[in-house]
């Protein structure tokens, strides 16, 4: 789920690496964790999804919920290195328009 988290106090950015699966089973824990990080340091978020293999609508809901909170202080959530079939899910659901999705810098 969350493989790694690091707050850069110079740029006020959270660097989060996601991995494995985010689904109806672990989404509540993921939500709690993200909200906790937002409270701890209300900065921008970079979510590195290089090792993320699966996310369902519950996981997407958590991202939306986090985005709402981050928007409250005019922050943003950037999503990076999505695998093609996960990127497809963001497009299908229209979430590619509300998150800043960086495409094309996926090294492989």
């Amino acid at each position, binding site marked *: 789920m969350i493989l790694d988290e690091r707050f850069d106090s110079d740029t006020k950015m959270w660097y989060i690496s996601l991995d494995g699966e985010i689904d*109806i*089973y672990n989404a509540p824990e993921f939500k709690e964790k993200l909200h906790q990080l937002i409270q701890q340091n209300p900065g921008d978020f970079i979510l590195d999804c290089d090792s993320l293999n699966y996310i369902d609508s519950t996981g997407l*809901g958590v991202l939306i919920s986090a985005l709402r909170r981050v928007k409250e202080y005019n922050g943003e959530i950037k999503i990076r290195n999505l695998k093609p079939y996960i990127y497809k899910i963001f497009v*299908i659901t*229209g979430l590619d328009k509300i998150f800043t999705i960086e495409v094309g810098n996926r090294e492989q």
Partner: protein
Amino acid sequence: MSSDLITLAIPAKPEYVMIARLSSAAVATRIGFDVDQIEDIKMAVAEAIIMIINQLTRPEKLSISFILDPKVIGIEIFGEGDWESSNISTHDLGQAQLGKYILSSMMDSVKFDLDNGTIRAIFMHKDLGV
């Protein structure tokens, strides 16, 4: 030749959705779907289950039937438990909307069996398309 039927029943708990997902992938593999189609089917089954679980106030059991024909997979998902049409929050509605977008783009057809505005069962199918 009549269709082959595979049925799976799991407790309607979040920790078991993954089992339905992986079993769906195994079924789809056997029919001959390609890697992307298998991903779609796994995702659709999971979303259908999530939708049904979210509508039940006391989810008990989920039954998933796979109806297999040489080039088509039909999937029926049915939930057992208590539910009320009134208990759906806007939060859940947003969630359900996400699920519906995903379902309808992953499968070739999706039908909801509604009971008083609440989804009790979901039928969907996908063609092998070769």
